[in-house]
C-alpha cells in the first residue's frame, strides 16, 4: 500500500532525525492528479523558500529537483498514473537526483548547492511552500545520513525493507497511513490536520526471499534444536 496525499493539510512533517548536508533519501511516488502549480513530493528544507525538494514542475511535464530560489534541475519526464522510483543524494554541496518510471532505468541529474542550505525538516506530500502540495501517492520512504552510491540507491528501491541499516535515519514504508518510523530511531512523522488515505502501492516486495531448508515431509524432525544445524530453518 501507499499513502495518498491530495491536500496541503494532508502533508506529513517532522523535525527530528534530520540529517546534515550529507544524506540520501529514496522512495516511490505516483502522480494521481496534475495541478497548475509546482508539486513538492519530498522536501528536507524549511522554511519557505529554503526548500530542497523533488517534485513536479508547474507545467506538469518534468520531475525536478529544486533548492532555494535557484533554478531547478530536470530529472526525467513526468507522467500521470505511473509509479516512479526516485532518490536524492547530497554530499556536501553536491547533489544527485534520481527518478525513473517503474519499467525504465533511473535517470539522474546533478547540481551544486552553493547557498549553504541545510536540511531542517522532512516534509512528505508538499514542499516547504504550502502551496506546492502533492496530489498523489508515496511509499517506501527511507533516509540515511550518508551519501549512497547509485548501486545502493537501486538496491534500496527494489524493496520496502532497508538493505543498508548503517546510517539509517528513517524508514517509513507507508503501508497504510501510519506515521511510525521503523528505523528504530523513533523519528516519527506528524500528521497534517486532514486525514490521508491508503491506496495501492508500487510493484516491489516487502523484502528479499528468505532462504529455507527443504526436506521431505516424511523425514523425521531432527532431535537437536534446528537452529544448531539448520540456521535457515524457519
Amino acid at each position, binding site marked *: *500500500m501507499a499513502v495518498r496525499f491530495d491536500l496541503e493539510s494532508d502533508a506529513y512533517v517532522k523535525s527530528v532525525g534530520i540529517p546534515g548536508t550529507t544524506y540520501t533519501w529514496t522512495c516511490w511516488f505516483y502522480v494521481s492528479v496534475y495541478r497548475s502549480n509546482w508539486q513538492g513530493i519530498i522536501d528536507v528544507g524549511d522554511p519557505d523558500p529554503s526548500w530542497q525538494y523533488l517534485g513536479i514542475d508547474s507545467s506538469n511535464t518534468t520531475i525536478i529537483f529544486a533548492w532555494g530560489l535557484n533554478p531547478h534541475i530536470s530529472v526525467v519526464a513526468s507522467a500521470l498514473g505511473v509509479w516512479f522510483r526516485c532518490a536524492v543524494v547530497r554530499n556536501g554541496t553536491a547533489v544527485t537526483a534520481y527518478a525513473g518510471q517503474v*519499467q525504465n532505468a533511473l535517470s539522474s541529474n546533478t547540481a551544486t548547492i552553493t547557498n549553504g542550505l541545510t536540511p531542517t525538516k522532512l516534509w512528505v506530500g508538499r514542499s516547504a511552500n504550502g502551496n506546492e502540495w502533492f496530489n498523489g501517492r508515496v511509499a517506501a520512504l527511507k533516509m540515511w545520513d550518508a551519501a549512497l552510491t547509485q548501486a545502493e540507491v537501486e538496491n534500496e528501491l527494489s524493496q520496502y525493507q532497508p538493505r543498508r541499516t548503517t546510517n539509517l535515519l528513517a524508514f517509513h514504508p507507508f503501508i497504510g497511513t501510519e506515521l511510525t518510523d521503523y528505523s528504530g530511531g523513533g523519528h516519527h512523522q506528524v500528521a497534517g490536520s486532514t486525514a490521508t488515505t491508503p491506496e495501492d502501492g508500487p510493484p*516491489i516486495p516487502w523484502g528479499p*526471499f528468505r532462504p*529455507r531448508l527443504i526436506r*521431505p515431509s516424511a*523425514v523425521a524432525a531432527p532431535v537437536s534444536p534446528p537452529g544448531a544445524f539448520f540456521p535457515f530453518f524457519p
Partner: protein
Amino acid sequence: MATVTQQLDPGSGQFLATAFPALVRGGTNFPVLGLAYDAAANEAAFWLIRAVNYGTGNVTVHVDWYADTATTGDVVWQAQLAAITPDTDTQDVETKALATLNTVTDTHLGTVGQRLHRAIITVTNLDALAVNDDLWIRIARDAANVADTMAGDAVLALATVSYSDV
C-alpha cells in the same frame, strides 16, 4: 516417496510493472502481511524456487487467503509454472513463456469476513518440470472470470508449493 513443500512468502513476491496485487499489512495482535488481489482486474505475483528433489507428478499449490471485506462469493485462483533446467535448456530466461494455467474456484465460507481459507490448485501443466529445475510460479486472481463473484480484495496470506520427491 515423500512430499516436498516450499513456502511462498507474500513479502517476497515479485511483480511485473502493471497488474500486480497490493502489499498490505493488517493485524491487531500480530502483523498479517498479505497481497491484496483486486476484484476487478487480473493481478499476479511471482516467485522463483528451485524444484529440489522433484520426482514426478503434479504440483500442488495451496493459496491461504482471506477476504478484505466480503462474507460471500467465489474467488477464482490461478497458478502457472515456467521451468528451466540450467545448463540444459537453451531457452532465453527473460523471454521464457509460462505453461498453460490451472485454476480453482474457492468459496467464501461465510460467518466472518476475514476468516482464512485454503484454495488448492492442482497444477497439471508442468512445463516439463525436472528435478532441481529453476521454477517460476505465477499466482493470480482471475477477477475477470464470471465465476469470480466475490466483491472486494482477496488477500493472499501465504502460499505453498508441494510435489513428490525422487
